Every structure is written in C-alpha cells, then in structure tokens.
C-alpha cells in the first residue's frame, strides 16, 4: 500500500522533473538560435530533410483526403440540393482544420520520428559528446538548426496539403461527378476569408510545428544511448506529438472560431 503511494509520488516527481528539463532544453534552444540564423545554410539543410523529404507523403495524403471530402461532401450536400457549395465545404474543412492537423500528424510520424532517431543515434555513437569535446555546443550546432528548419517547413507543408486537398476535391466533385465548375470556385472564393480562415490555419500549423519539433528534439536528446532507448524515444515522439497536436488544436479552435 505504502509502496504503491510512494511509486505514484515518484512518478509524479519524475514527470515534473522531466517537464522542467524539457522546458530548460527548449529555452536553451531558443537562446542558441542566433548562431543558426547567422549560418543560415544549416537551417536550409534541415528544411530539406524535414520539409522537402516529407513532400511526397504530404502531397499524396492531401490529394486523397481532398478526394474523400469531395465524395462525402457531395453525398451530403446533394440531399439539400446545394452541391454547388462543395467547394466551400472542401476548402474550409482543409484550410481551417484538416490541413494543419493531418499535415502535422504526418509530419510528426515522418520528420519528428526521424529527428528523434537521428539525434538519439548521434548521442549513442558519441557524436554529441565528440562535438562537446571539440568546444562546439551541440544545442547551437545540432538542435537549433533542426528546430528552425522544421518550424519553417511545417506551415509550408500544411499549405501544400490544403492545396492538394482542394485539387482532389475539384477532381472528384467537378471532373468526376460534374458539379458546376464556376460555382465550385466562386463560392469557395466568396466564403474563405483570409484572416479568419487562412491566417488562423497558418497560426495553427506554426504552433503544431513548434510542438512536434520541440518534442522530437527533446526525446532524441534525452534518449538513453542504447538501441532500445532510441526506439522507445522515437515511439514516444510520435505518441506525444500526436496527442499534443490534437489537444492544441482543440484549444486553438476554441479561441479562433467562436461562431461570431
């Protein structure tokens, strides 16, 4: 009984301790970001590995999600005789919600896990220790460029996801089913507001990008330097980031779209 309570206490203390370490790590990353921006080629490289290499999965998924939205949306809208509003349904669903959220979930599994595994393995093979011994701060050289590379990539990927989704919705709705093309685009143009919809979508994707990347970097840096440690850290990155994305999405949506 007493041991059980002690165990709970220890877990809570460990959890709070880890949160503290993660916060300190995040602040140190921000503090050391100046050097990354002065040597921008380091960030560009990370934009390539986190962003460009995630393009295929993001574009293909976006296309399919948009096609499904087109099909499902048409089914529902035609019941009310308003299938011309398909463009509005597809675009608002994507720009406000599905674009940032699904792209971030895919980003967490593709780029987040890669970042954790890479940094975890760098630690396990003593590359991080070697860098410290060479008087080079690994947070400034390894962590900060990856952070900014991924944070810059995330909104761009979300935008491409939404664009592909709209194309998918167009292909199914207009080309395949035969919804009026003029109505599809003009209603979409009239209904989508730049500030309310697009800007809020971009804000969401930036926040998700920060959350996923911070989690991925910390898990990699904190991973025990063994094969098992790195594998567990990679799993934790995907699970924690996915939960963080969905939780943050609810909070952000509650603030952004209040039906006014």
């Amino acid at each position, binding site marked *: 009984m007493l041991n059980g309570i002690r165990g709970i206490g220890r877990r809570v203390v460990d959890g709070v301790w880890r949160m503290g370490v993660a916060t300190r790590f995040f602040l140190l990353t921000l503090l050391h970001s100046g050097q990354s921006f002065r040597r921008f080629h380091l960030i560009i490289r990370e934009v390539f590995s986190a962003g460009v290499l995630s393009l295929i999965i993001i574009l293909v998924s976006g296309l399919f999600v948009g096609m499904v939205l087109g099909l499902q949306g048409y089914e529902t809208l035609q019941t009310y005789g308003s299938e011309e509003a398909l463009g509005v349904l597809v675009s608002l669903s994507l720009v406000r919600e599905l674009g940032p959220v699904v792209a971030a979930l895919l980003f967490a599994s593709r780029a987040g896990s890669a970042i954790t595994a890479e940094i975890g393995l760098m630690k396990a*093979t*003593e*590359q991080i220790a*070697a860098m*410290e011994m060479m008087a*080079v701060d690994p947070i400034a050289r390894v962590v900060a460029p990856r952070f900014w590379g991924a944070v810059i990539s995330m909104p761009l990927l979300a935008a491409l996801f939404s664009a592909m989704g709209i194309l998918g919705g167009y292909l199914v709705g207009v080309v395949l089913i035969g919804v009026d093309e003029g109505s599809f685009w003009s209603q979409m143009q009239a209904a989508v507001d730049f500030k309310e919809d697009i800007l809020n979508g971009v804000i969401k994707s930036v926040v998700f990008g920060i959350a996923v990347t911070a989690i991925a970097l910390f898990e990699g840096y904190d991973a025990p330097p063994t094969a098992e440690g790195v594998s567990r850290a990679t799993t934790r990155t995907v699970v924690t980031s996915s939960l963080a994305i969905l939780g943050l999405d609810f909070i952000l949506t509650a603030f952004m779209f209040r039906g006014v």
Partner: protein
Amino acid sequence: MSDNLIEIRDLSFAYSDRMVLKGINLTARRGQVIAIMGNSGCGKTTLLRLIGGALRPTHGLLMVNGVDMGQIDQDGLYGLRRRMGMLFQFGALFTDMSVAENVAFQLREHTDLPEEMIRDLVLMKLNAVGLRGAQDLMPSELSGGMARRVALARSIALDPALVLYDEPFAGLDPIALGVTGNLIRRLTDTLGMTSVVVTHDVQESLKIVDYVYFVSEGVIVAQGTPAEIKASDLAYVHQFVHGEEDGPVPFHYPAPPYSADLELRPC
C-alpha cells in the same frame, strides 16, 4: 610554463554516493605518451572524462595546462578544449559528413580561415594518417581501423597540446592495431603534443608509451616505465601483462558456493 601538462593530486570522484576514483596522483609531462590501464570498470574512462572536463572532481586537484578543472566555467572549458583533442572508442565520426568535412569541422567552427586553406590543412592532416585518398568517402564506407585514423586526424585538426584516447585499440585487427599505435607515437612526437591513452591492450601500448599507470578499483596500484611494468612482480600487474585467467582479478564473479547453487546435499 609548467613542465607538467596534467597534474592530478589526491583526486577522488563519486557518482552520487558510489566512489569510483580514490586518491589518484598522476602527472603527464609535455611531449609524453602516458597510458592508463586497468580492467573494465576500474574507473579509467572516468579518469579520462575528468581530464577532458566532462566530469568535475569530487575532491582533490586536477590541473590541465595550468587550469584548475575543479573551478573552470563553461567558457573557460570550451577555451581549453580548443587546445585539446579526443579520440573516442569507435571514432564518433559525424555520419552525415564526408571524411574531409569531419576533419574540417573544427577548423570551420573555430576559425575564419578561407576554404582553400581549410582544404589544404585537411589534406595535410589526412596525409599524416595515410588517408588523403579517402577524403570523399562517407564514414559508413570506412573500416573500423580507417574510421579510427580519420578520427585521429580530426582530433589533431587544431594542433592541440593534449590528445586523449579512449580505448584506441579496441576492435582493431593486428595491422590496424600497429598502425594506430605507431600513429599515436609519431604524431605526439612530430606535433609536440601530449597523449593520454586509456586502454587495456597491454602489448600494443607498452610498445609506444613513456609511462604507465595501472588503475584497479579506483586506485592507482602500480606505475612505471614500460620496462619497469614488464619486470614488475606485483600480482595484479603480472596477471594483467601476461593475460592470466585467474589472480587478483578473479575469473568468477562473486557467487554463493557452487554446491549450494546446484543444491547438492553432502552424502
């Protein structure tokens, strides 16, 4: 400038409440190659990490190049490390960079030298370890011995005063073993640096070092020149140098009596 690059007096170190090193006294004169030997888990790697500033002494004095490592701050440590190289057990090469980029890493990070000069310096360092022709290879394309030599070239990129070697001979074939050993000696002599080699490879290291410290269970149990070590009749040193199975370092991990474990009853 003191003649001793490393000076350790009555040094102790503990991980939380577990004492790892007790009352260590050690000196390394400039230009010397010294070896710290002992069986696995005796505390020799901890001693190397203390010298490199990755750990702080719990008690005692540790001076490296005239700097007290117990009092040094982060900036001071990074300043000192620019004059220090380290060869890790398996090289620890950056896997996303080519051989030449690995060697150029510190030059690019710590100097403003033009690219042409960095290229020339890299080629000189790689030539010193015989791998100029491998400059464009990636670490995954190198054998264990080659990776160790590239790491050696990288550790001397800034012409350090001190190079630390963590098990430089582990996992090498006999040819690579001899090559690595000779390189450590030759580079120490030609570059005028000091080398500290942590190893359990007795035969190879006795060929190249000037002085040996034997560590067992956190204390220095023997020291001397290679000739003195070879002639030593101290039981621990004798067992270690001749690779005997049993001795002060027992073959068996502490265990209850064999008969008790097998549950044998006296007849």
